[in-house]
């Protein structure tokens, strides 16, 4: 070792390494390799053999390779116990995981794990082949020429192992059970409703106000704006929004009030137009619908907000609906609508935007109410039945929360584990 290096940092590192070497010698670290271990030379660069032997960390123990459970195949989970040198003192920089199709090698690098890690997932396996793995702890440092030196420990070969795909993700069993319960309750109440049983649904002020809001626009002879959010049709909130639009459009068509739907996605444009056409046809006024009522503005979030703000300020609509997925533009839109004195009804399942809508709008449909609105407005028994089933699901969750709190309080069982889905 050259202690006369001009670089002070490197000198310090050298001294530290030297001290570490002495420490390892004094601890009489086992350096011998048994018959099952394969000697592993430095991967990046090599130092003189004496240094490598002294600085090589103790190997990781109890290496196990098994098929990654609950996956679609093509992955093996390799786990191990930490090297005794991996105690946070910098003697271990990480772990090198190597794979081979034969016990005797040659082994290729499957990946690296950081120090302190005890498992690694190899995502590049072939389900038709068997593999052998070995895991080596390594110590890495820069030499005087700034080259990275890696010194690896001995490594035991483990295997064979073969990856495979599973037909059921057991981690999601409880989710399936909850889903079946809720779906069963929904279908049960839909069937009950079909038989003509009366179903009580609590009043939702925001949805009840829809009629009033449309009526107000009619009386004032002003427009209604319906903003379906900034997400595309693959978002369930947009689907719920279009369903509500259908109901609102029916009312607007009946009252002969101009309903304008500026959209930010082309697919929403087509879908909203279809929903409007159906609504106007249903009330016998298909000729009253004009192309300009549903129109595209822009995909851009703030461009869309700017365009709608401009429309609100210029045209001063009597009523504005905000239904769907909104982000930062929620308050920009709602405050502008508020400033022109429009009656505003909002509905979203974006928890972060709810406070803004509550502050700036007259009525807000909170979360689940957005999804219930279409069924509620339709007054159709089968749709109302689905809401009742949804309430049963809510009842189950309330029960679980109460039982979970009691069990956790008395330290009996952490029930939250069954709600964790991976």
């Amino acid at each position: 070792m050259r202690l006369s290096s001009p670089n002070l940092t490197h000198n310090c590192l050298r001294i530290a390494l030297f001290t570490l070497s002495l420490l390892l010698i004094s601890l009489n670290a086992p350096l011998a390799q048994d018959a099952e271990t394969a000697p592993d030379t430095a991967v990046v660069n090599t130092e003189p053999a004496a240094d490598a032997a002294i600085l090589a960390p103790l190997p990781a123990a109890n290496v196990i390779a098994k098929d990654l459970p609950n996956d679609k195949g093509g992955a093996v989970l390799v786990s191990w116990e930490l090297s005794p040198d991996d105690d946070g003192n910098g003697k271990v920089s990480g772990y090198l995981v190597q794979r081979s199709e034969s016990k005797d090698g040659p082994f290729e690098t499957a990946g690296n794990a950081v120090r302190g890690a005890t498992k690694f997932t190899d995502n590049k396996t072939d389900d038709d082949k068997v593999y052998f793995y070995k895991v080596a702890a390594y110590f890495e440092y820069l030499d005087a020429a700034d080259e990275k030196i890696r010194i690896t420990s001995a490594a035991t070969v483990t295997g064979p192992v073969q990856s495979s795909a599973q037909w059921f993700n057991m981690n999601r069993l409880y989710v399936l059970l909850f889903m079946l319960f809720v779906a069963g309750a929904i279908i049960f109440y839909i069937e009950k409703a079909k038989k003509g049983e009366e179903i009580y649904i609590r009043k939702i002020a925001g949805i009840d106000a829809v009629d009033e809001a449309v009526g107000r626009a009619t009386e004032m002879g002003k427009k209604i704006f319906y903003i379906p959010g900034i997400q595309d049709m693959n978002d369930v909130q947009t689907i719920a929004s279009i369903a509500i639009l259908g109901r609102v459009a029916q009312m607007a068509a009946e009252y002969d009030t101009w309903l304008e739907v500026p959209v930010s996605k082309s697919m929403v444009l087509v879908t909203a137009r279809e929903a409007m056409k159906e609504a106007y046809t249903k009330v016998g006024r298909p000729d009253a619908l004009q192309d300009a009522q549903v129109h595209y503005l822009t995909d851009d979030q703030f461009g869309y907000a700017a365009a709608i703000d401009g429309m609100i300020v210029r045209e001063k609509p009597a009523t504005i609906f905000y239904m769907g997925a909104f982000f930062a533009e929620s308050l920009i839109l709602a405050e502008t609508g508020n400033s022109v004195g429009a009656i505003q009804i909002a509905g979203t399942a974006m928890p972060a935007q709810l406070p803004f809508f509550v502050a700036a709008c007259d009525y807000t449909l909170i979360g689940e109410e957005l999804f219930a609105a279409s069924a509620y407005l339709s007054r159709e028994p089968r749709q109302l039945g689905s809401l009742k089933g949804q309430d049963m699901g809510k009842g189950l969750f309330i029960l679980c929360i109460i039982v979970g709190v009691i069990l956790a309080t008395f330290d009996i069982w952490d029930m939250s584990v069954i709600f964790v889905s991976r």
Partner: protein
Amino acid sequence: MRRQIPILITTIAGLVFAISYFIPHDPFGESESIFGDWITIVQAFAVWLGALNLLKISFEKISSKSADWPYAAIIVVSLMGTLAVGFYDGYSGMAQDPQISFRDPGTNFDWLYRFIYTPLSATMFSMLAFFVASASYRAFRARNVQATLLLIAGFFVMGGRVPLFDMMISPITDFPVFSWFADWIMTYPNTAGQRAIMIGIALGIMSSSLRIILGIERSHIGGGSG
């Protein structure tokens, strides 16, 4: 048939997605990424629908000289101008060695993006600060018990997010009252409320999805309720 086929497609696609959540094995395991690719392709083509609709509506406004036709003219000029610059940069970039894309730094299109689009977007976003102030003013007026509680919670949360309030109270107590209370409000009552809303949303999505899969809800495909 016009209604039955979309309902059938919706039902099959809905069931495949629901099943694929629980079955990692092919073909279900790959279905989400396959459908995701399809959605991306359809969305890419659908952009033209939107652009053409925008042009059509704008031209109609200009030709009929409706109230806000100058804005429509600005839209048409901006849209066509940006398109022309993009095509020009793309075409001229192909002739260069090495070839450059119209989105690369230094192109005219990049100039439009950096010096027109970005400042305009930033302006809209920055207006949020003023809207938050005006909305907060209305929300925090102590008109009833709930609004008063909101005001108190808001006072402590805002006070706890800046060191000034804890510093002001330090002559009385070393304990950071404001930041502790702000953290407590955000960690417990706020998290509990948010989770309650999230559970409701999850159930609502489930109920909506079932209505769609079973063909009871058809408004989104222009079919009204079943």
